[in-house]
C-alpha cells in the first residue's frame, strides 16, 4: 500500500475533506449569528468548526485558510479539556491566546462545535468575550436544529 503523510488541513487534501457545506437554512442562520462579530473593533476572521476540526462556517477569504485555524482550534480545545480533566479543574470556559501579531479567542458552541475568532492586537477582549459567549450560544441552538 502507498504510505501516506498526514498533515493538518493539507493543501493537497480535497476541500470536501476539511470543509463541509451546511444546509442552506443552517448556513444563513450561522451567517446571521456571526454578523455582530464582524462589527467588533479589530475583528479579523472567525470560524465555526466541528469539534474534530471540520469547518462548518467561516468568514475567512478562503476555505483552506479557515481549515488551518479550525484544525488548530479543535486541537487547542481538546488539549484544554484534557488539561482540565488531568488537573481536576473542570471544563474550559473559553481559550484566549495572545500572540505577537494577533489574538485568538476560542469557545465551545455546544456539544458539536467550536467558535474560533481571530482579532487584531488592541481589541477589547472583555467586550469580545461577551459577544462570543452570546454568539456561541446562537451557534449551538442553530446546530441543534440539524
Amino acid at each position, binding site marked *: 500500500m*502507498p504510505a501516506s503523510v*498526514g498533515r493538518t488541513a493539507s493543501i493537497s487534501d480535497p476541500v470536501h475533506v476539511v470543509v463541509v457545506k451546511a444546509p442552506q437554512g443552517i448556513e444563513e442562520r450561522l451567517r446571521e449569528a456571526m454578523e455582530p462579530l464582524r462589527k467588533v473593533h479589530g475583528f479579523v476572521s472567525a470560524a465555526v468548526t466541528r469539534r474534530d476540526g471540520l469547518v462548518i462556517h467561516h468568514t475567512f477569504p478562503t476555505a483552506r485558510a479557515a481549515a488551518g485555524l479550525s*484544525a488548530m482550534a479543535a486541537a487547542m480545545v481538546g488539549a484544554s479539556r484534557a488539561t482540565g480533566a488531568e488537573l481536576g479543574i473542570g471544563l474550559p470556559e473559553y481559550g484566549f491566546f495572545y500572540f505577537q501579531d494577533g489574538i485568538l479567542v476560542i469557545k465551545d458552541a455546544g*456539544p458539536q462545535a467550536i467558535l474560533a475568532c481571530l482579532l487584531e492586537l488592541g481589541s477589547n477582549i472583555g467586550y469580545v468575550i461577551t459577544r462570543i459567549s452570546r454568539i456561541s450560544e446562537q451557534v449551538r441552538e442553530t446546530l441543534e436544529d440539524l
Partner: protein
Amino acid sequence: MKHRFAMSDEESQAQFQLVSKDLLEHNVKQGVNYWAGSPYPTMLLWAGRVYDFLRVMEEIVGFYPAHRQSYLVGYRSGTDGAAVSESIETKGSKKAARTRLLASGTSITAGAGWGRCIIEYDEDSGKAVWEFPEGTAIGLAARLEGARTKPACPFIAGFVAGWTNRSLGVELEFEETKCVGRGDDRCFFESVAFLHAKKEYVE
C-alpha cells in the same frame, strides 16, 4: 441498484499472495519495499503501533481532533491506494470500472492484512457500508490493549472514505459505528451526513 462485494477464504488467501507478496518489491540496496510500482516506500508495521498514533494523540488533544487527524491520514492512504489500483486495471466502461475499483477494496484490505471486509453500496440512496465481520487489524490490536468507549479505527474509517470517494467520484464521510476495540462483535463503517447529531459528542 445495490452492490455487495465479499470474498471467500480462498480469495482472501489469493489476495494475500498478490498484495502482500507478488506486488511487493524489495530494493536490496535500500532495504526498503515498494508496492505495485508506487514510488512510496512500504513497510510492515504492527497494527498496534498504528493504534498507538491515535491513543497517544487523543491523550494530548482529546478524541475528536485525534480522530480527525487519523482519519485524514487514512483518507489519503485510501485515495492514493485506489489511484494506484486504478492504474493497474482500467478495462470496461467508466461506471463498471468505478464499481470494480470499489469492489477491489475488499481485495486490498484482506490482501494487505488490514481485515477481510464486505462492501455494500446502494446506487439509489448513495449509501455505502464497509463491514469487517472479524474486526480490522487495528481494532483487534486495540482490543488487546483493553476496552475503549470510543472507536479505535479512524484511520480505517478515513481509508474506506478515501477509497470509496476516489472509486465512485463521490464525497462521503464515514463513521465507525461498531468497533471490536470497544467490545462490539465487528467493525462497521457507514457513510453518514457530514453534519448530524453524533452520540459520542454528547458528554
